[in-house]
Every structure is written in structure tokens, then in C-alpha cells.
């Protein structure tokens, strides 16, 4: 594997890690507030569809982005209604949302575009184009770091940089702001928040809506940044990998970046090499692709540190017995 290969794989890693990262941070907000979300996949999928569909119709990717985010937030609202207001089962609600997204996107795609379950291919302004970071050209000559900066880091779409910036932003919001403090508290002990005179319901809705926003960005990136249009089931389990990354990261923003980059890297590698040949052992592609899931199980089993979810996660808050 040459240096050029490595730069290429890094470049690919960043592209592939971006939707994971956005979805993972989305899940982080929701679960930190005590609302489990296995519906990341579904929200990403509706966002992918609506962003591509509206971008195709208007020719404006930013309008598409707005539509995608809006759609994901509507789904987030459904999850909020089910799990916060009606105190339903958060897991079942997540399952329902995934199915709803899988079905609805195809139905609407067929109805609007009659091209099977896809949107027309996007081009020009209907797609995010890549932007070059400052000095990319000038620095590309610097040995090693130059190409990494110019080729792996530079030249992605704006959403990639938004995703990367979302990591420190998430960290800052969670750990340096009043909102973040309350949000973390409501996922650990809603009673403490309630007795402190702060509305548990409002906080949880806010978290769930932020989750919608971020999954919206993730989906929009998939359809209008990474690909050029929507195809059926195009999230292809990324929502679940993001969930795995979230557990792997133990619900922490910087660790989430690490986990998503790792999982993106695994995908990039498996894209490139159909089997990994280490001389003595050959690792089949299927195994490389399954590695995020396997790693998550190992983490969950407590063999590599213990992943302790927010204590109040998964349970609706009920004041009176």
C-alpha cells in the first residue's frame, strides 16, 4: 500500500464517515437526553429522499437541504410524540419510524417522478459541489502532510466540514452551555431537572428535534453530496452503524468522531480491497463490513471498557406512580 493509496483511503474515509458522524451526533443529543433512538436510519432515509427530490424539482440544493431537514424533523416529532408525550416504547417507535421511512420514500418517489424508487439524477446547483480549503494548492507540495491536507482533507462538500465542525460544537453545547447541562441532566435523572424547576418535556423535545436536524443533514449529504440523487434504501444500514458508533463512543462527541472515522475507514478499505490479505490471515470482505457490528457487541459485552448509557435512557418520565 503506497502513500498515495493511504491518502486516497483517508479521502474516502472522510466522505464515508460524514453521514455516520452526523447521524451519530444526532443520536448523541437524543440519547443524552434520555430518548433512545433506533430510528436514525429512517430519519436519514426520509431526509435523503426529500433533499434529493426537492433539489431535483427546484434545481437548488439548499432548498433541497431544507426540505430534507424538515422531513427528518417531522419524523423526529413523531418519535417525540410517541416517546415523550404518550410515553410509548421508544424502541418500538424507532422500529416503526424506520419502516415508515422505507415505505414512504418509495411511495412518494414513485408518485412524484415515476422513475421507480429513485429521483432524477442531480447535477449542477442541485448538488453540493466540493470546495477547496484555503492554501490546498500551495501546500500540496509539502511532503506527507501536504497531500493529506490538499487531497484527503480538502475538496469535500460543505456538509463534510459542517459535520466535522459539529463535533466541537456538540461538545461545546453539551459541556459548556446551560442547555447542555440540562440536557445531560435530563438523560441521567429527569427528577433532578424537574425539581430544579425545568421542564423535562421541553428539554427532551428540543433534543429530539436537534436529532432530527442532524439526521436531516446526514441524509441530505448522502443523496446530494455523496451521491447524485436518491435510490431506494440508500442509507443501507448507516443509521445502525451510527448507533453502533454512538455506543462505541460511549455517548461522547470526540469519541464519536473517532468511532465514525474508524467505521468510515473500514468501509473505505473494504471498498478498495475485496479481501484483506495479511499474509498469514485473509480477512474476507463480509467480515470487514461486519466489523462495526462485531466491535459494538464486544464493547457492549464489557470486554473493552463498559458502555454505560444515560441512566434514564429509554424510560418515559412519569412523575406520579
Amino acid at each position, binding site marked *: 500500500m503506497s502513500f498515495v493509496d493511504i491518502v486516497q483511503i483517508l479521502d474516502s474515509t472522510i466522505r464515508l464517515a460524514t453521514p455516520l458522524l452526523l447521524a451519530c451526533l444526532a443520536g448523541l443529543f437524543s440519547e443524552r437526553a434520555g430518548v433512545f433512538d*433506533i430510528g436514525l436510519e429512517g430519519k436519514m432515509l426520509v431526509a435523503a429522499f426529500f433533499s434529493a427530490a426537492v433539489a431535483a424539482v427546484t434545481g437548488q440544493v439548499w432548498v433541497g437541504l431544507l426540505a430534507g431537514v424538515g422531513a427528518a424533523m417531522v419524523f423526529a416529532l*413523531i418519535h417525540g*410524540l*410517541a*416517546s415523550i408525550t*404518550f*410515553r*410509548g*416504547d*421508544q*424502541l*418500538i*417507535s424507532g*422500529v*416503526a*419510524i*424506520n*419502516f*415508515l421511512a*422505507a*415505505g*414512504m420514500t*418509495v*411511495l*412518494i418517489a*414513485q*408518485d412524484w417522478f*415515476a422513475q421507480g*424508487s429513485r429521483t432524477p439524477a442531480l447535477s449542477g446547483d442541485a448538488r453540493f459541489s466540493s470546495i477547496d480549503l484555503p492554501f490546498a494548492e500551495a501546500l500540496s507540495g509539502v511532503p506527507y502532510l501536504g497531500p493529506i491536507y490538499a487531497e484527503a482533507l480538502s475538496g469535500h462538500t460543505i456538509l463534510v466540514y459542517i459535520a466535522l465542525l459539529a463535533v466541537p460544537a456538540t461538545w461545546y453545547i453539551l459541556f459548556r452551555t446551560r442547555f447542555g447541562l440540562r440536557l445531560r441532566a435530563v438523560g441521567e435523572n429527569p427528577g433532578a431537572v424537574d425539581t430544579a424547576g425545568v421542564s423535562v418535556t421541553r428539554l427532551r423535545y428540543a433534543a429530539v428535534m436537534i436529532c432530527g436536524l442532524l439526521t436531516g443533514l446526514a441524509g441530505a449529504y448522502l443523496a446530494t453530496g455523496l451521491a447524485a440523487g436518491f435510490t431506494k434504501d440508500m442509507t443501507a*444500514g448507516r443509521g*445502525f452503524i451510527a*448507533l*453502533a458508533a454512538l*455506543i462505541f463512543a460511549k455517548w461522547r462527541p470526540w469519541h464519536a468522531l473517532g468511532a465514525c472515522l474508524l467505521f468510515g475507514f473500514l468501509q473505505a478499505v473494504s471498498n478498495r480491497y475485496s479481501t484483506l490479505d495479511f499474509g498469514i490471515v485473509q480477512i*474476507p470482505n*463480509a*467480515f470487514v*463490513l*461486519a466489523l462495526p*457490528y*462485531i466491535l*459494538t*457487541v464486544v464493547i*457492549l*459485552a*464489557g470486554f473493552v471498557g463498559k458502555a454505560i*448509557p444515560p441512566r434514564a435512557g429509554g424510560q418515559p418520565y412519569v412523575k406520579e406512580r
Partner: protein
Amino acid sequence: MDKLPRWADIALVPFINLALALIVSGLVVALIGQDPFEALAIMVNGAVGSSYGWGYTLYYATNFVFTGLAVAVAFHASLFNIGGEGQAQLGALGVALVCLAVPWPHWTLALPVAILGGALFGAAWAAIPAYLQARRGSHIVITTIMFNFIASALLVYLLISALKAPGMAPETVRFPEGARLPTALEVFGAIGIPFSRTPLNVSFIVALIACWGVWVLIWRTRLGYEIRAFGRSEPAARYAGISPFRITMLAMLISGGLAGLMAVNAVMGEQERLIQDNVLGAGFVGIAVALMGRSHPVGVLLAAILFGALYQGGAELEFETSVPREMVVVIQALVILFTGALDGMVRSPLERVFLTFRKQPKPGLAPETRP
């Protein structure tokens, strides 16, 4: 005292939930420019209007009975097994290995062994998440999701390597003739009743037996009693000397085994070879079926037939109109949403209604009755 009378709990609430799901589905159909009533007519006719429709409806229902029972048994132990998909995949592997390992002379010999193979493999796939939940406190929902993905990766790997048949497709060779299960066409044909050629096969009987078996297990055996007790209250189970570890393991093994049995119908009964995408989402449909069937085998059977009809009707709908088959997925999602997650939306107003019809509580019950 129950807030709702029993009939309301087991019939009225699910009925309202289902009605809401169907109303919203109808709106969706209308939104994409089709007449919902016409669509309904096509679906009903396609699903139960002919022996062909019935054959497919019941064939799908057979799959859903197994996965629905799997979810239901776990629900009784208050475990949410969403790994039915992966367990069924592994069950398929077990069934395929059984069918391919021996040149079976007759299906009557192959079937019991295949049942065993499917159940064992499915159970084995459920065992790890169960152990992790019982001993290490890892959330079973997350681990079973992960195991779904790992199962499909494993199957892909085997189908492109060790098990691959010559040719291009990632599938095994066809099972031997002796492992073919008789279909409804043959069974009814033998007694002179005409029936369409459908994949409905003797596995349907196995599914009915499984329903009965689960009923016996849950309501007639000591283990079932313990599963139900554990599911209702873990402290009470501990008080009664019921081991949480043992029940978690056994309930999940049975659940996984049932999910694995689905392969007897789908893989042995229809596909007759192991292919990659053999479960067709039935593992997830099982969740909707168990929720709707209130985790009772009879309810599961009825809900499975309903979903079987939905699947078959949906296929016909796609054939006849431009409504894609995904309509069924939407209906399924809405059923899960309304019967599962939004249950409280229907239940609490209903409870209030019933409460106002009931006489007010005697004033100051517990405290005053003492000297």
C-alpha cells in the same frame, strides 16, 4: 383493579389502533393519487379472492406465525427480541445444511431433522445476545440489531464461498428431491380438491402446531408460568425462586428457535435452496404481528394471516396499479406505530371514558378502614 375491562384491553384497543393505522394508510393511498377503496378492494380480492390468493396469503402467514411467535415468547419474558431477522437467517442456514447434507429419501424424514436444524441454529444465534443481557447487562435490543447485520454478513460470506453452487448467483445448489415439502396443490389434489400452484406447503401445519406448542408452553408448562412471572415482575420472580438468568436464556433460545423455524417454510418449502435474502423482512413483521396479536398464539395467528393477506394483497396491488409494494411496508409501519408506540394515545382517553362510567371510588378507602 384494571383500568379497562378485559374486552376493551384485548379487543377494543387493538381494534382502534388498527383502524387508525388503516385510516392513515388510506390517506397515504389517496395522497399518491389512488382511490383507497379501490386499492382495498384489489388487495382483499388479491389476498383472499381465489385459492391462488389464499395460497400465498397463508404461505406468508406461515412465515409471520413463526417470527411473530418468536417475538411474542420474548415479550412474555419482557424481552424485546428484534433479532428475528438474523435468527431466521441462521435458521435458514441450519435448514439448508440439513437438506444438503443427506440425500433425503423422503420429506417425512427430512422435515423433522430440518425443523431441528433450523431451530437449533436460530436458537444459537439468540443465545449470545441473551447471555450478554443476562450476565453482562448489555441491552438486548442493541445486540440483536447488531446480530442481524452480522448474520447477513455471515450468510453472504458462506454463499460466495463454501456453500456456493456452480453458476453465477450466490446461492446453494437445489435441495434434493427428497427434501421437497408437499405443497397445498399436491395435498388438496390428492383428495380431489383443485388448488392453485402456490408455495403454501406442509410447513403451515408446522406453524399451527407451533402456535399450539407456544400456547401450551406459555399457559400450561412450568417454564411458561415462570417466563410470564419473570416478565411481569422481576422482584416477584426472584421471590419465587425463579432464576432471571435461566429464564432470560430459555426464553430467548425458544424465541430464536421459533424464528429459525421460519426457514422450514421459506427455504425448504419455497426457495428450495439457500439464497442470500431469504427472510424478506419477516423478522421485523413479527414485531407487528406480536404487538397486534397481544402476544397470544391465537392473536399471533390471526395477525399473521392479516399480514400475510397484506403482503399478498400488496403484491397484487402493485401488479394491478402503480402503487408500489412498499405500501405494505407503510401499513406495517403504521400498525407498529399505532399498536406499539402510540398505544397510550388511544388507551389513556379510553381509560378516562371508562372511569367516568364507573362509580366513583368509595371515599378514603385504605386509611379509614382501620380502627
